[in-house]
């Protein structure tokens, strides 16, 4: 194991986490820009209706519905897909930290991070149920 390169120092892990967060934000922004462009091109000249709450159509509330809408080329669906990527970024960061602490053999923080991920997934799962 000692020959395994690169060394997983705290600094190295911090660099990887930084890259992960940055990639997530860039990917999410790119998708949102694409969807936003389509949405503005098609609806930019109508009036916004945000003073009355109607709630989003069911398609835009669940992961399968959003993917369906995005694949159909709808601007709002593509934006929502980008937002899903954005929401997934911190979750991915926590999941990656588990692996990083495990490689560092920091058992205490593997347990801490698994706990955080479990609570997070519980909260996300109970909201979709």
């Amino acid at each position, binding site marked *: 194991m000692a020959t395994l390169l690169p060394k997983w120092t*705290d600094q190295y892990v*911090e660099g990887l*986490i*930084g*890259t992960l*967060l*940055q990639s*997530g*934000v860039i990917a*999410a*922004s790119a998708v*949102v820009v694409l*969807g*936003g462009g389509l*949405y*503005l091109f098609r*609806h*930019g*000249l*109508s*009036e*916004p209706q*945000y*003073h*009355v*709450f109607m*709630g*989003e*159509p*069911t398609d*835009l*509330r*669940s992961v399968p519905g959003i993917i369906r809408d995005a694949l159909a080329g709808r*601007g*709002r*669906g593509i*934006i*929502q897909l*980008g*937002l899903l990527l*954005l*929401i997934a*970024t*911190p979750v991915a*960061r*926590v999941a990656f*930290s588990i692996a990083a602490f495990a490689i560092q053999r*920091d058992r*205490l*923080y593997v347990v*801490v991070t698994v*706990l*955080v991920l479990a*609570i*997070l997934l*519980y*909260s*996300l799962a109970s*909201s*979709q149920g």
Partner: protein
Amino acid sequence: MKIIEFTMLVGASSLLAGFVGSLTGLGGGIIITPMLTLALGVDIRYAIGASLVSVIATSSGAAAAYVREGFSNIRIGMFLEIATTLGAVAGALLAGRISTGAISLIFGVALLYSAYAASRARHEKFHDRAPDPLATRLRLNGSYPTPGGPSAYNVQRVPAGFSLMFGAGVLSGLLGIGSGAVKVIAMDQVMGIPFKVSTTTSNFMIGVTAAASAGVYLGRGYIDPGLAMPVMLGVVAGSLVGARVLTRAKTQWLRIIFGLVIGLMALEMIYHGLTGRL
């Protein structure tokens, strides 16, 4: 007003929200929510959805820089996230069962005091404090970059900080805002963590807390793509600028800005508590 103009306006204000949010560790929600509801007449539920998106965007946008440069303390963040995520679940369960008006009012008054306490100058010498045994065992002590080179710090009063973090989580589940403020105040005032480490670690943590709530609000139909699009893009751009400024800014200035924003937020909460609006 047409959608395209509305989008431009929201995007420009979100730029400011991302800048202030990443500089103070508070996320962009404090600016996004009143801007959308009071200035643009957006329904509060859409505004809450957009505000959550803005918090995640500020957090992830600025965190890349803060983590790489060694400001955010990942172990402090991960350890305290147990308390905030648990608190957020508890807050979501309590939501709808207790009156948020009274809570807003109490929280607002407490924040007014915190705004005063946090903006006062404090000595920034942290290495002269004896290490706390629990903090040492949890490997929370660290060092961060200063103009005079890396500066070490020892974390104090871990149990009290952990409890306050639980409270921060409950507030965010219950009221949708306010968790970043409690996080920074707990780390800075209670745990004796340097101010820049406190704000950037709070910034690192708020994305996770908000992601947990975002699932709930997406399911309820609060997250509107047309509204969230300019919010997210503006906030990301603003947070990148904020992250560049923070690394060079004098701590005393950051404290003053933080105090002003917290004071404003306190007034928002008191207003909300008294009128039930916002």
